[in-house]
């Protein structure tokens, strides 16, 4: 059909091994993702086996330490892998990002003993993770969460409901933010919960506008008994852990948005070179080519912005503001670029026989997840006006 023969994005990668990793990613994307994406999204089927394949290839632990089986890659490289996956299938790219986010509390805040015990499995490629912060009544105001963990001997008894959990019901482990005291954001703890724990269950998956191949479900914790040695960091430290995890997670969403937009751009460019009206190809009309030029500029700018934030993180510098900017810019850009791609295809863009209407529906979710774009502006504003 269209968008064949897409030229790979030119990338500046820091090492030869990063280049080999990106080659492997493109091979997996074209051989394992591309043949499935349309059918799975149309049928709302979660591609669990694809996560096994890319996990065995090593893509589910890239930015973590090799000591625990991670890939030892900088964010700069890991995020470009996410972007490449998103160019073909955003559900899988977002899944990699969410899994990586879910590993962060243990990798970043667990003790060495905890990391030795669980991290190799989390990063090993066979398991899939989920991150449980949002609740029905607490979304943007995440610190208002009410899921409770009460100590009973050597376990926490957990009760509450988590909303919108990506991989809910499919995941093997859940990084769970819950309340151990009433002191607002200082009363939150982070637990690493095994999916097979009694009292942990998933509701029926949400019926979403997009990302239909990705599973999103409410998770219920109903007297779930979680061993106390599964507390990551200290009680009361949970909210700090949650926010630190989200700083990195937002970069994953930004990279996902850039890949999604790149896909839409590629389709639009190919179409403009094939479709003829008034005796000429669409690309010969300035009204169309200017639109394509703006789309391409947005994609490049988004890529540059998330990579800048990633490089700050890799150098050990503060990157919270940059990550919020990247998430805000890239996801708004993806919304605009996918909307314009529908416009370039005209009526063909509006029907499900062509992929761009789906990309437009997918872009919308990225403006909402991991802090809405209003929340990103709050974060950026706070950084700017901080005394």
């Amino acid at each position, binding site marked *: 059909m269209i968008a064949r023969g897409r030229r790979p994005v030119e990338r500046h990668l820091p090492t030869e091994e990063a280049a*080999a*990793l990106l080659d*492997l990613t493109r091979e997996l994307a074209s051989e394992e993702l591309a043949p499935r994406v349309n059918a799975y999204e149309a049928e709302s089927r979660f591609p669990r086996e694809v996560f096994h*394949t890319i996990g*065995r*290839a*090593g*893509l589910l632990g890239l930015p973590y330490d090799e000591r625990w089986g991670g*890939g030892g890659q900088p964010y700069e490289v890991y995020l470009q892998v996410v972007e490449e996956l998103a160019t073909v299938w955003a559900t899988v790219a977002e899944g990699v990002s969410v899994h990586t986010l879910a590993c962060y509390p243990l990798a970043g805040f667990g003790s060495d003993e905890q990391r030795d015990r669980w991290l190799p499995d989390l990063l090993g490629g066979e398991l899939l993770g989920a991150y449980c912060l949002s609740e029905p009544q607490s979304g943007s105001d995440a610190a208002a969460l009410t899921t409770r963990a009460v100590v009973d001997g050597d376990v926490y008894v957990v009760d509450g409901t988590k909303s919108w959990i990506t991989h809910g019901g499919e995941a093997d482990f859940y990084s769970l933010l819950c309340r151990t005291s009433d002191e607002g954001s200082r009363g939150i703890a982070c637990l690493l919960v095994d999916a097979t724990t009694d009292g942990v269950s998933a509701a029926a998956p949400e019926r979403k506008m997009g990302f239909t191949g990705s599973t999103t479900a409410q998770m219920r914790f109903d007297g779930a008994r979680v061993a106390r040695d599964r507390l990551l960091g200290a009680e009361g430290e949970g909210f700090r852990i949650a926010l630190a995890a989200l700083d990195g997670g937002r970069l994953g969403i930004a990279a996902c948005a850039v890949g999604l937009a790149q896909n839409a751009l590629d389709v639009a460019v190919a179409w403009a070179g094939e479709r003829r009206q008034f005796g000429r190809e669409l690309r010969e009309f300035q009204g169309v080519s200017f639109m394509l030029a703006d789309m391409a500029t947005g994609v490049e700018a988004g890529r540059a912005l998330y990579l800048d934030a990633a490089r700050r993180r890799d150098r050990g510098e503060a990157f919270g503001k940059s990550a919020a900017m990247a998430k805000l810019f890239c996801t708004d850009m993806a919304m605009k670029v996918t909307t314009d791609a529908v416009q370039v295809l005209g009526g063909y863009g509006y029907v499900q026989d062509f992929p761009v209407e789906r990309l437009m529906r997918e872009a919308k979710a990225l403006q909402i997840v991991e802090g809405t774009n209003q929340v990103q502006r709050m974060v950026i504003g706070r950084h700017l006006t901080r005394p």
Partner: protein
Amino acid sequence: MNIVVCVKQVPDTWSEKRLDPEDSTLDREATDPVMNEMDEYAVEEALRLQETHGGEVTILCMGPDSATQTVRKALSMGGDRAVHVVDDALHGSDAVATSLVLARAIETIDAVDLVLLGSESSDARMSVVPAMLAERLGRAQLTFAKEVTVDGPTVTIKRLTDDGYQVVEGTTPAVVSVVEKINEPRYPSFKGIMSAKKKPVQTYAVADLGIDPGEVGLSGAWTSVESFELAPPRESGRVVTDDGNGADRLAEKLVEFLASKKFV
């Protein structure tokens, strides 16, 4: 159990192939080189056998310098070491010469219990190298395997045939060629790619294997391509318009058409 897997670099099946008008051999520069697909199944099977039986997996490749890509790929899937026979004299070798070179190279490797290969290469499609190789090595040949089991010195395969399979048994050391039905080859993992760079690759020239360069390559070939012609471009199809009574005359028209083309 020590296994040698022979792998060949071939032009990508999907890319357009061209013959070099100079010497009627495949113009390898004009195409994207990849590992012969059937050989990926052989590598996978070797790795699976190694997982159960232990031992070493050695990758053996005869091919130009650029075939290091294929050697690397096989090592990144999990092979332990590689032997690469590179020599300009090999250019244009036929199956007879290829089997000679592979046999001599295998003889440089200690204690080989099993040699695995794909049952054909996607460029030449002769399917004769495995048998020739077994003959040269004086080993049991078990070809077209869709399943391989090893129990002590006994190798049993299910040999794919047109209407089913035959169970064939032999003893090690043996040569086994495999078909695609045998398994699903793994992707190399990121770590595999990294570690492949550090794995030992021994290169040999033809003379290192005690072979006279005149025995191989174009000059040593038993067959030669006299001339070649490009396949004519495909003609456009013929559209038969249904003028309203298509249904009753459809079968008739089809038969007429097929008969005119001598298909029936």
